[in-house]
């Protein structure tokens, strides 16, 4: 592992994204547009539904986007032969994975920053806790998407397969994270499953930030999500093989 190489990978990934203007615009703007759509849907609703589900979606959107972008990009790197070239060079697997995590984490920071600013500033999303911490949680969620995307790309042979991992890995987490049914009202088995899914903690953290100024629980949730990120990157690194058949 070396900082120089990690930064080289991150810089290269960012240079690629910068050249792809359409992707760049979509990365920055889409979550914000979706939040605005949600706000509009509930504009005439008497119940504060936007305030209830808005925070959860601030956690979910960056997670989904980064999961998809990362799994497809890494797969492309595997199939184009550039990964083989890099692994024949003095590049640590950790350099490769952290470089990606860093680049996409940075993009996630911009994406979440814009989404949170618009949601709180323009759409009037009520946040009791710290807005800064809300951005931090959103970034960690995005990095979680990156880590899981890196991991599943190892199990996908084609881009079609990589995209199918979205309904397989992401959608169940969205269903069980407490957005549709509060987690403690789920059937016992499903509640137990939701307890071991990272997105549940990400959404919990967001919900705490909205309802209370007490940050203790937020940090615990954040630590759990960060743990999943580290585990995902470690497993992803184990699936990167220098020698392939």
């Amino acid at each position, binding site marked *: 592992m070396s900082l120089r190489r990690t930064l080289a990978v991150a810089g290269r990934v960012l240079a690629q994204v910068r050249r792809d203007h359409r992707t760049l615009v979509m990365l920055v703007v889409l979550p914000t547009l979706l939040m605005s759509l949600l706000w509009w849907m509930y504009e005439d609703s008497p119940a504060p539904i936007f305030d209830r589900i808005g925070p959860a979606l601030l956690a979910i959107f960056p997670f989904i986007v980064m999961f998809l972008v990362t799994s497809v990009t890494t797969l492309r790197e595997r199939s184009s*032969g550039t990964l083989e070239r890099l692994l024949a060079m003095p590049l640590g697997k950790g350099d490769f994975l952290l470089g990606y995590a860093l680049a996409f984490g940075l993009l996630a920071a911009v994406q979440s920053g814009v989404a949170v600013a618009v949601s709180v500033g323009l759409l009037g999303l009520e946040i009791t806790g710290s807005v800064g911490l809300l951005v931090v949680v959103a970034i960690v969620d995005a990095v979680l998407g990156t880590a899981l995307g890196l991991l599943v790309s190892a199990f996908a042979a084609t881009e079609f397969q990589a995209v199918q991992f979205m309904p397989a890995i992401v959608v169940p987490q969205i269903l069980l994270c407490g957005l549709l049914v509060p987690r403690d009202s789920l059937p016992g088995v499903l509640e137990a499953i939701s307890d071991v899914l990272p997105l549940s903690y990400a959404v919990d953290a967001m919900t705490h930030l909205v309802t209370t100024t007490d940050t203790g629980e937020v940090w615990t949730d954040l630590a759990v999500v960060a743990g999943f990120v580290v585990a995902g990157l470690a497993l992803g690194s184990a699936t990167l093989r220098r020698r*392939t058949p």
Partner: protein
Amino acid sequence: MNNVVEVSGLRVVRGKREVLHDLDFSIRAGELTGLLGPSGCGKTTLMRALVGVQAKVTGSLTVHGEPAGSASLRSRIGYVTQASSVYDDLTVTENLRFFAKVLGAPASSVTSAIETVDLASHADQVVRDLSGGQRSRVSLAAALLGSPSLLVLDEPTVGLDPVLREQLWGTFRTLAEAGAGVIVSSHVMDEADRCDRLLLMREGAILADGSPSEIKQKANAEDIEHAFLTLVKEAAR
């Protein structure tokens, strides 16, 4: 002359099939070695084994006296895969700057690598917009960064125009003369005479190992293509 690569009893299994059978040979520094054989004979697998990215390799395979694939060898081997493994959405210079950073090669090596493969006028073009031949030259330039002492080039001249092919063989020659071990694969037999030494391969085995003239003499043939045919018939007997 000292051996850069020493191979003995090399076997490689892919899936359930053994694709390289008990190979023995060496590659010397300062020599341009051609690895010739038909498509599918195991050239790429052999090169991947030399670089250390091939799984299920048995037997002895050393580069600079260390087992192939050792971490210390990774900055000393330049490897060009058959498909041009560079980033389509970056410019030529951006690609090479990135690989130079990974290798720890000086920034100046980027300019000289671009000049060597004759792409200076395309340096700021995005790789996607280049022709197939230009793209494979970018891939070659990436392998030249950091002055490697062993160059493993998998069909680097396929599909290139004759003038450029001539130039590149000149480049390989220069690199060999500067002291590097250079191994170049090709399925085009007429490239044989450009090499100091040939390894003729067929179906995962080495059919002949020697200078082009030695091989032609041995098979009593006028060119390598005929020598190859004669040797195949002899082996079948």
